[in-house]
């Protein structure tokens, strides 16, 4: 005898995907309009630092140089792969013609990429991933940040991933994942039960469970050391508060697509 998938699970998870294809289309449409405006404003920023150079406007030499630099920087991708990823980036930026002058992927576009390519659906988490990618906090993911970020989420070591995830989960960036942050991230992880007196009771409880599991120094918050230790003990806790890394399947699909397609030309 074989159990059918429980209906709650299917319905819940599809619901938690939140954004469907239609909405994605809508969002992109919106962005296109917004982006146009932004493009007009930032039209004069063309001559920024190298890492900010508009990819399509770069000379071939500059482009090669950038590839070399990035290749040395990340070490995880070979030159060809870096070039491929650069191309992907360019394409992504160029998807929106009005934005050609923009310095990189803005928040919405980046989140779109995460959503469609890597299947990361939680808005809050993708927002945080954007923040972590965007090291210089200029609200754009530029070429370099793109390659560096990808090197971690695609080919990072466990340690790198731990660091990455911790940064994602540390919402306010104070070096600790506090109870409140956990609560915030887990808020929507349980089905609300109409019979429960306090709908957040379950979430609170879940936070306590997580804290018990990870707070080794008993200071009621999870430090980086705590997090690292917990993940080393149990790898499943790497994405304890929401999936922020692409799963192996979509990662593989992305790499295949990015590297193979570009090999041809």
């Amino acid at each position: 005898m074989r159990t059918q998938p429980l209906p709650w699970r299917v319905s819940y998870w599809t619901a938690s995907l939140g954004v469907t294809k239609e909405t994605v289309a809508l969002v992109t449409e919106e962005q296109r309009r917004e982006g146009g405006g932004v493009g007009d404003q930032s039209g004069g920023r063309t001559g920024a630092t190298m890492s900010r150079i508009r990819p399509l406007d770069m000379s071939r030499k500059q482009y090669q140089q950038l590839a070399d630099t990035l290749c040395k920087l990340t070490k995880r991708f070979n030159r060809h792969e870096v070039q491929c990823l650069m191309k992907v980036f360019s394409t992504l930026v160029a998807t929106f013609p009005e934005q050609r002058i923009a310095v990189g992927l803005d928040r919405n576009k980046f989140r779109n990429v995460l959503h469609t390519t890597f299947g990361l659906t939680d808005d809050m988490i993708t927002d945080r991933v954007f923040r972590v990618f965007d090291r210089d906090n200029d609200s754009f993911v530029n070429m370099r940040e793109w390659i560096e970020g990808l090197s971690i989420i695609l080919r990072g070591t466990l340690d790198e991933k731990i660091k990455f995830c911790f940064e994602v989960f540390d919402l306010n960036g104070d070096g600790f994942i506090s109870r409140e942050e956990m609560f915030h991230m887990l808020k929507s992880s349980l089905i609300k039960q109409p019979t429960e007196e306090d709908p957040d009771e379950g979430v609170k409880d879940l936070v306590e469970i997580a804290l018990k599991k990870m707070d080794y120094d008993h200071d009621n918050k999870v430090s980086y050391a705590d997090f690292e230790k917990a993940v080393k003990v149990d790898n499943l806790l790497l994405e304890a508060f929401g999936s922020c890394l692409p799963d192996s399947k979509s990662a593989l699909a992305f790499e295949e697509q990015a590297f193979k397609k570009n090999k041809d030309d």
Partner: protein
Amino acid sequence: MASGLHGNRTPPRAFIPRSSCVQRLAERGLFRLQLPITMGVALTRAAQWTAAGIGVGKLEFTPLNISLLNSIIKFVEYVSSKHPQEAALVFREPLEWKSNLEISGFGADYQISKRTVVSKETVDGNPLLILDDSTSIIKVSTFSQLAKLLEIAQKEKLKETQACLEANRDPIAKILGPSFATVEGEDKSMLRLLEKVKKGDEEPEAEAQMKLFLLLQQLDMQLLNTSLQKISQEVRLNPQAIKNDVQLLQSFSGEGDLTVLRSINYTSEYEFSNGCRAPPWRQVYGDICYLIINTHDTETLYVTCNTAGVYLNGGPIKDSEDIIYDRNGDIYKDLITFLKEKSPTFAENLTLVQQNFVLQKKSTPTRKTQKAEVPTNEELDQTEKFSEYQDKNKFERKKPPPKPKTRDIKKEETSFVHKALESSHRLSIKDEKAQLKVQDTKKIIKEKENVEMAAARKYKCKAAQEKAHLIQRVVSDGSEELSESSTESEEDKQDMNRQQESGTDLPSEYWQIQKVVKYLKGGNQTATVIALCSMRDFNLTNETCQLAIRDVGGLEVLINLLDTEETKCKVGSLRILKEISKNPQIRRSLAELGGLQIMVKILDSSNKDLKCLAAETIANIAKFRRARQTVRLHGGIQRLVGLLDCVPTSAHLTAEQEKDIEVARCGALALWSCSKSKKNKDAIRKAGGIPLLACLLKSPYENMLIPVVGTLQECASEPSYRLAIRTENMVKNLVRNLSSESEELQMHCARAIFKCAEDEETRNLVRTHFGLGPLVKLVSKSDNKQLLAAATGAVWKCAISMENVERFKHLKVAETLISLLIGQPEEVLINVVGALGQLARDPVIRGAIRRSSGIGPLVNLLTGTNNALLVNVTKAVGECAVDPENMSIIESLDGVRLLWSLLKKPNPDIQASAAWALCPCIENAKEAGEMVRSFVGGLELIVNLLKSDDIEVLASVCAALAKIAMDEENLAVITDHGVVQMLSSLTYTRDDMLRQNLADAVACCCKWGNNRVAFGETGAVAPLVHYLKSKSPRVHRATAQALYQLSFDPNNCITMHENGVVKLLLNLMDSTDEALQEAAAGCIANIRRLALANEKARYK
């Protein structure tokens, strides 16, 4: 209605008073029709008159009416015989009715003319009985005449009475005068009569009248009572009952073959407030409704449902909506009975439906609780809707609608009984779910609620726990017939029951686990992963926790998680399942929930961690037969064998390769578990598992080798595997691992050798790979009994080869083995003694056994009870007895007597083994003959063993008899016991071993008295001659010797010669075997001598 009938009565009638009980009955709609005529109250009220409104009312032919009529007839006869005075009283008005009687029937008391019959008895010139033949109207004026009439009527009695009563609705009024007519209201007739009596002389008959009246009243009361009794027995119908019936039948109606009816419909859709559908003016007659019923096998039935019962009516009036209300057939007590009578198909299908119903009814508790469940369910839905509504309106609002307290309490209570009831109710709940589905398919119930409801149901079922147990038993009985491994499942069920009983006190972990499982159920991936991780923090090796997970429904969720796409969830879930599946009960539950199928599927996954975990979990679950079967049937074996494919030996392994090896290890673990079933062994072989296992056997890793060797060892019970182990060169690796660090690995290797060494080549391979030394080393490790058993077993089997014995001699294994003869468990002893038995074939070792005083312990073991051990011990003792020095020790220990008594064991293996062992004993014992004779009844016992069916027993006994027959006295005794006859009857055997020993025995037995002649007479000679055609030289020798002995009798010589013995013997004479040559030559010489003597006699 009543008035209508009134109009037709000639004498004006008044209404009779209603006695209160009758009134009550009438009000309940009990009486069909109330006609204001009577032979007192009873007739009016109780007798069932037809509804025919016009003309003379008719008495219906119902049982009640018949019994009333009978009473009346009796009364009439009684009055005329016992009360002649009253009977002679002339009626005020004669009773007048249309008779069916023939004039001819009237006897001498009547004056019969052409037209009329007039009674001779007259009063004032008026005859008391007049029958007008033309109109056939009869008039009767006295009870005596009535009685006479009834006498004449004989069989028509009943009809006449009926006709009389029908025509005279108020007979009393006629009999006693209109003043006595039954009157509605106060009955003053009695008083009036009394007054009359008081007045005295004026009316002389008054007294008689009075008496008659009293009698009539008595009758009335009597009638009323009987009818009341009858009526009260009848179940009366009411609108609700009819409605239920119709509803029920409608639900089972339709066009299908299995429905009870085609259709059943009311004539009118309108339902009055009292539940009736009949028009009000028919309701007064008790009609409830009218039905049109289409059955499968009759024409359309038009049915009236009346309070009195169900009957056919006249059907619809053409071109009108009305129907003919008159009854058209018998009355049935309810609709079902009615339809059963009318339609055979209905009856048939109804029983089918009822059977189903009975099946459902068996789960009575569930049905009940289900009814109770409905409001809860609705309540839940409502609250849900309510909260949805609120959410829509106020997004910010966080407070949910107030929770109904009762539910909370209930939930807690449910959890208490949850555990206790869990397994026993699982079945009934399943039923219930199915029912729910049928009954409200439209309702989609979320799983969450479902589980909660199930829990609530369980709680409610508590009262019916006993019953549920019963059901469980019933169901389990049924399922056992289906499942092959009944004993296994039975045991486990018992376990479960025990668990239930003890599980009254729940530990705190239970609640915590329940909470975690709740999050598992109602969370997204993130929450699920956290919950899974936290679940691992419980002590999952603890049975309480394991069962708690099961009891709170965790297994279902964990298995369900395996079906999702989420790798993390699968990993987390499998990690837990891997741990808890070490519990036998959990195993069963997991298998029942279909976990194995999903896990087998996961084996295809690209994620190696997942594969490992799944394989390990399968390894844990597949410890019982059905699970192993499930794995096989779902293609698990091929997949598991597929996991074995890796590169096990290379100096530098990449991380990936290491993982591959881990996968292979887990696969081997799972195969090890699965390999306990024979079909799985075949499946592994067919899936190409053997070369892969052979490859993995080269692995240097212990944790890899243990499952691999374990699997091989398990499979080595199959000849194909033994062959493969030899040919794939696995013996070498097995031998190598005998020197491993791990005792478990050593044990499995030794066990594999034990099983494989049945094969001679394998035994030699073990020796050539220097495996005997390590084996002997293992034998000296006496603390690990399992290892010891395996190692001694391997020694035993290896010692079957003499070359190995030679090697063992140098390794001095016998001494070690002898030290193991004392204080070891039977499984070790069997192997030790078996090994000694094989080793003792070597004379040096025999001596060694004696010197290390091994004979004493061996002989002591002859008193044991274990069959396998006894077989080995007798063999060992027999081998030792070959040495005369050993024999003297055995004799002094009374070993021969012990051996001999083992012949009494029913087991043929022991019998044979003991008889074989006796041969050297008798041969080597001093004064063997005397010794044998000293066993009282011993010779008879051994001769009787020749009646055995077992070839081995027969052969061994023949051998022993040959030894016994060496002593002449003993030979005489066995001859007396009929040994010759018995041996002769065995001569037709085709088994060479038996032939050899049989021929030996015959040769030895010939030496006494006229046994030679007896053998010839019992027909032993001819078959013996044919033994010479056998291929075995041993048979030839023994047979030649027997024939030589037999040839001293001339008749035998003739028989032999006829069977062509000379040519056969001549062929054998060029054998190198001197004994054979001598015997053959002697035999031929005897035959020749006879021929010569014959010729001499002829030519003299």
